[in-house]
């Protein structure tokens, strides 16, 4: 009798608990999936204060590679610039700061230029699109380089949070 009771308590209860937890978890919402390759296009603006620095950014069509862990993102341009940004996604807005690039691209004759990645995820389109800009900021001047990116391979989505 004791082994049966022991088995029911030690095995039965956790089984029921696991089923309950699986049910509770259906209500959880995870961040939007962005991981994978994206075809990106940067549109350099008309000559402006930071036009020299703009030339250090990826020119023309390029591939954007995104590594994701929950809301944390690592965004890399797969071209000669090898620019990499680390940041996160909140709802549909991506904000990231540059973490590595050729040294000359950051330290320029006009001082240190910080580069940020800011974009919004458009999930209405198929495949998903990113609409945003690379923002160059040297403290006194701020230039936005418009960016659009389209997911290269459509990612199958399961049942979202559930």
């Amino acid at each position, binding site marked *: 009798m004791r082994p049966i009771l*022991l088995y029911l308590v*030690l095995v039965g209860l*956790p*089984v029921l608990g696991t089923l309950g937890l*699986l049910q509770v978890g259906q209500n959880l919402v*995870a*961040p939007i*999936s962005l991981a994978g390759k994206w075809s990106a296009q940067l549109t350099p603006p008309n000559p402006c204060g930071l036009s020299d620095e703009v030339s250090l950014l990826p020119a023309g069509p390029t591939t954007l590679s995104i590594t994701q862990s929950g809301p944390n993102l690592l965004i890399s341009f797969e071209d000669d610039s090898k620019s990499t940004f680390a940041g996160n996604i909140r709802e549909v807005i991506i904000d990231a700061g540059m973490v590595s690039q050729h040294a000359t691209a950051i330290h320029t004759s006009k001082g240190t230029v910080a580069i940020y990645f800011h974009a919004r995820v458009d999930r209405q389109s198929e495949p998903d699109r990113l609409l945003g800009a690379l923002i160059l900021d040297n403290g006194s001047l701020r230039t936005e380089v418009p960016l659009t990116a389209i997911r290269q391979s459509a990612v199958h989505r*399961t*049942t979202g949070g559930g």
Partner: protein
Amino acid sequence: MPRLTILLIQIVVILLAARSVGWLFRKIGQPQVMGEMVAGILLGPSLLGWVAPGVSAALFPPESLGFLNSLSQIGLLLFMFLVGIDLDPRLLREQKHAAVITSHVSIIIPFFMGTLLALYLYPRLSDDRVAFTHFALFVGTAMSITAFPVLARILTERKLIRSRVGTVAIACAAVDDVTAWCILAGVVMLVRASSVAIPLWLTLTGTVVYVGIMLYGTRRALHRLEVTFRARNKLTQDMMAVVLLLVLASAWVTESLGIHALFGAFLLGVIMPKEQGFVQAIKEKLGSLTVVLLLPLYFAFTGLRTSIGLLSGADMWFYCGTIIAVAITGKFGGAALSARLSGMRWREAGTIGVLMNTRGLMELIILNIGLDIGVISSALFTMMVLMAMITTFMTTPLLELIYPARQRWHELAPARTARAA
């Protein structure tokens, strides 16, 4: 550089690293396999790619990894077959309720805790491409696994394999592995059913038919093979070819069904006749090639996917620490508590807990499957690889602490006397 040249250089470097780090680990009382796993990590972006990115890029160019992966997958198929062949249902039958309760509790408690942990991790380390149910079932399974092969090796090295603790632990590990692989097969089936063309009903029906054929058809054919082996008293090349063809065919069927090639290889090993001479002959023919040459390639491939650099920031290390704590608490606590409640002494129960907490290579295999099917992210993969390494590493010193050699010598004295008589 020609592809074959790169592949040969890769194999030489991997083997050298695996053997030398494995030797170092043996010197500090750790299983060789632990060192080989560490060597794999060292060759990846966590060390070589970080310290010498140029060398790493030249040695492991992305376009060459397909060949390395294919070779390592073949090695893994053979290894899973060898793991299956080592599992003997008699192990469980010889044990009474202690093994039944302990094995089931040592699966369900870590599984429950893994599911609880998934509630916390899902919004933090997953994304909406992965359903919560799939994520939670996978994390639960990853928490429940025990490295049957490493455990068997540790027990043999410590001369514990014939002790009460050893027989209960090995029986529990066998049950744990079979159960965890069945759960994982279910998770892979669910995930693939929602993302590939094979409908779930077809996978389920196919799996039932396949298991039926394996248990009632293939098993009999294998029995005839064993009878032939006994008659000739040797394993001929033709017989070995039949075994290899069956391993590959079984793996191909399960892969086509949408579960995973590894399940096919594993199941064929499980249903193989367990006659000692036959099993030993197959292990001798396949073992060295698989364990010495092909498995280190798998460790290296796993290492190339493990990037400790992804764990940047205090929050990521906190998640990693939490995963390790939950894994140890669930597996060690669950197994030790149930062993104690089943009538074992605290020392024995603690030893069972420590042994069952060994995850080793089996955990790495499960994690790679999780990463392949997209249920876990690269960062979570890295955290869980660290968890697998730490739980395996801690086994030997903890075992020595809880169940020291002097104590083992003293307690195993009656068994030795009986064997001598």
